[in-house]
């Protein structure tokens, strides 16, 4: 065990735990965007930074291991300034309309993206619709790297996408930006499961949103077990008006860690094959 102090509270966590784990133990809510329990931390978004005594710069809570005797502050003016600025930078360059967590943090830290004016450069671009299963709207991409990790060595090992370009032009891409059907993509949808901003979205959700019919309040979520093979993955079916609109898996599930395959993720149509007219066989 290691003992450290966070905001004056003494906290002890297991060896190898992160500052973020320790914050959770101390019930201090820490904003995160690029962090996901099931993926290697890339600490790229920097919204979780905290002040560590003796460190010249702020440190990312999600990736930095807790060490014996660390003294950490999570709510100093420096921390609040950095978190606010990161959120302003994102909100002024990316469409966060389908990113509820980011919106909540913006409110909490008083981020005001309008300060940068209407001419501020953004990542706005057309939605990529090149297959029947999911869409990619990189206007909403905060470049958290999670989809790349989920597609790569952290889960799927398919390596269909990577970060391409550099600086503000860095973006998620297949090779030469070829459409997904020409890429290595196997449509596991694990990138969608990891995406924190809705940049990657089931086509079913995208179409309902386009028609103004997406209604989360009216949806139910039902856990079930995938019927395809013997692994027994837990599926969470999101259902609106008696139709499955999205299939996820709980990230804390020990079998899936939130990841599925193409069958569990997208192969649900047979459940709702309903004849157009009710044909009775008398």
């Amino acid at each position, binding site marked *: 065990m290691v003992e450290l102090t966070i905001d004056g509270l003494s906290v002890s966590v297991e060896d190898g735990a992160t500052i973020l784990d320790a914050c959770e133990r101390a019930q201090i809510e820490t904003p995160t965007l690029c962090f996901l329990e099931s993926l290697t931390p890339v*600490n790229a978004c920097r919204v979780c*930074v905290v002040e560590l005594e003796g460190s010249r*710069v702020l440190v990312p809570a999600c990736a930095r291991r807790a060490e014996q005797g660390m003294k950490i502050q999570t709510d100093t003016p420096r921390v609040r300034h950095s978190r606010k*600025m990161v959120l302003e930078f994102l909100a002024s360059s990316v469409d966060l309309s389908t990113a509820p967590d980011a919106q909540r943090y913006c409110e909490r830290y008083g981020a005001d993206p309008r300060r940068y004016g209407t001419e501020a450069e953004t990542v706005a671009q057309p939605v990529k619709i090149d297959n029947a299963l999911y869409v990619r709207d990189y206007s909403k991409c905060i470049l958290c790297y999670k989809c790349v990790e989920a597609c790569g060595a952290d889960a799927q090992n398919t390596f269909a996408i990577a970060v391409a370009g550099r600086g503000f032009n860095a973006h998620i891409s297949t090779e030469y930006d070829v459409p997904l059907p020409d890429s290595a993509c196997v449509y596991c949808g694990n990138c969608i499961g990891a995406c924190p901003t809705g940049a990657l979205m089931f086509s079913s959700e995208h179409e309902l949103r386009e028609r103004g019919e997406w209604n989360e309040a009216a949806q139910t979520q039902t856990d079930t077990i995938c019927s395809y093979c013997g692994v027994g993955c837990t599926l969470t079916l999101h259902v609106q008006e008696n139709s499955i609109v999205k299939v996820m898996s709980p990230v804390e599930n020990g079998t899936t860690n939130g990841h599925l395959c193409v069958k569990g993720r997208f192969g649900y149509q047979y459940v709702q094959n309903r004849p157009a007219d009710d044909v009775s066989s008398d």
Partner: protein
Amino acid sequence: MDLHFTSARPTPEERAAVDEAAGDANGARTRRHLVLPVLHAVQDRIGWVSGGALNYVGERLGVAPADVYGVATFYASLSTTPRDARVVHVCDDIACMNAGEAELRAALETSGATVLRSPCLGLCDRAPAALVETAGATPSATAIAPATPALLSDTLTPTSIGGSDLRLLKRAGRIDPESLDAYRAHGGYLALQKAFELGPKGVIAEIVASNLLGRGGAAFPTGRKMEAVAGQSAQPHYLICNADESEPGTFKDRVLMEHDPFAIVEAMTIAAYAIGCEHAFVYVRGEYPLAAHRLENAIARARAAGLLGDDVMRRGMRLEIEVRRGAGAYICGEETALFNSIEGKRGEPRNKPPFPVESGVFGKPTQINNVETLANLPPILLEGGAAYACIGTPNSTGTRLFCLSGAIARPGVYEVAHGTTLRALIDLAGGARNGSAIAAILLGGAAGGFVTPDAMAMPLTFEDARAAGATLGSGVVMLFDERADMHAILRRIAEFFREESCGQCVPCRVGTVRQAEALERKEYSLLDDIGRVMRDASICGLGQTAANAIESARKNLPIW
């Protein structure tokens, strides 16, 4: 044949040039067929053929000096009267005479160059044409067409190398950088010899005693880094020479690599010996082809001479040095980004900890040092760490290379002991260009900061720079006179960081864009907020310093 010679004797250099070209007579009494190649060799090495050289040519080839003279005076390219080592042949033949060659010659003569009129150079399609010939240990001939005074001045003005205390630069520009023999004749490989006598621990002890601090910008104690790597149980240990010199205004490492590449190879061999490394890398900026070529040549010659490879100096030490070339990315000068680049990945920095001494390239303990830092190792071993520590000040030991450019009389690399004042350094380079008034001085590069002439009395040390809120950084001293548009300079610096951000973390990826936009729109009030988050929350030094120059200009320059 009984030959008669005057008393004129060749200089050692002339003798060497003749011997190399004439080779062994193998019993032949006369070798007249070699007269022209040997005269060429003298001309290329010295720039003209003296009486002494001519006699020696005759002697070695068994040809009467009058005959040699007859040949030498027949050819226009050979000179029997003293001539500068560098001459510019300007074509004044019929194509060029109608393309402005007279104006070109006049401009060149005004600038003090030695200009010779030449018949057609065969570059008529690109008239006016010029051919710059430079005699020396590595002679060169460069055709330039169409030639302009500006284009020619690039070729005619070599880097100034100067200073008050030449240690790192003592061979630069004075010996043939491609010759191992020349290097050894000027003290080369004595330090490695000494290292073998001291043993790895002894080498590190000398470097610790020297109190050498890293010259890449972070000023970390080199000896402590070596101790940490040497003590790691994980194997293998790697050594990397960081030659990705990309900080705007910096060219000292290029000069070291181009002019004294064997010194870098020897220094790396010493460091590798001390930390127990058998495979080292030198990561050279992609834009430095000559430096990479010279290093590759030095490594090949050292290997052929048993100074690298399976049994270095027959001491049972193994070492291979691999040259890796960058491909246009400032960020790869950041050590962890450089590791990723060597590993074939995007040059994105890693989060620290873990630190390179524990987990560097390929996840192994890695010693990584800037070129200039490594270049200090041979002098430290030769004079002893304690003696080295007496140079400079107690906290900033040794000499330092500074890159002077901008509105300075003699731009170049200057080596001075730490503690020399900024004014003394600038005076060494001839002061401000044309006596103009200096408005601002950029210290330490784009990641450094601006000071005004008020800072002229500042001693150039790590501690004095820090106390003045400045940094020596990578040794940049760039002068701007009153005509410089400082706002345009600042916008360009902001643009530089925007272009060079790797894009990994939000504070830097978006912050560098917002900083450039705020400068462009003159919304200066935003700059402080943007600068703070970049400095506090960026992953690496690029983002953390991307606002430095602009913030220092906001504070120090009277332009707002």
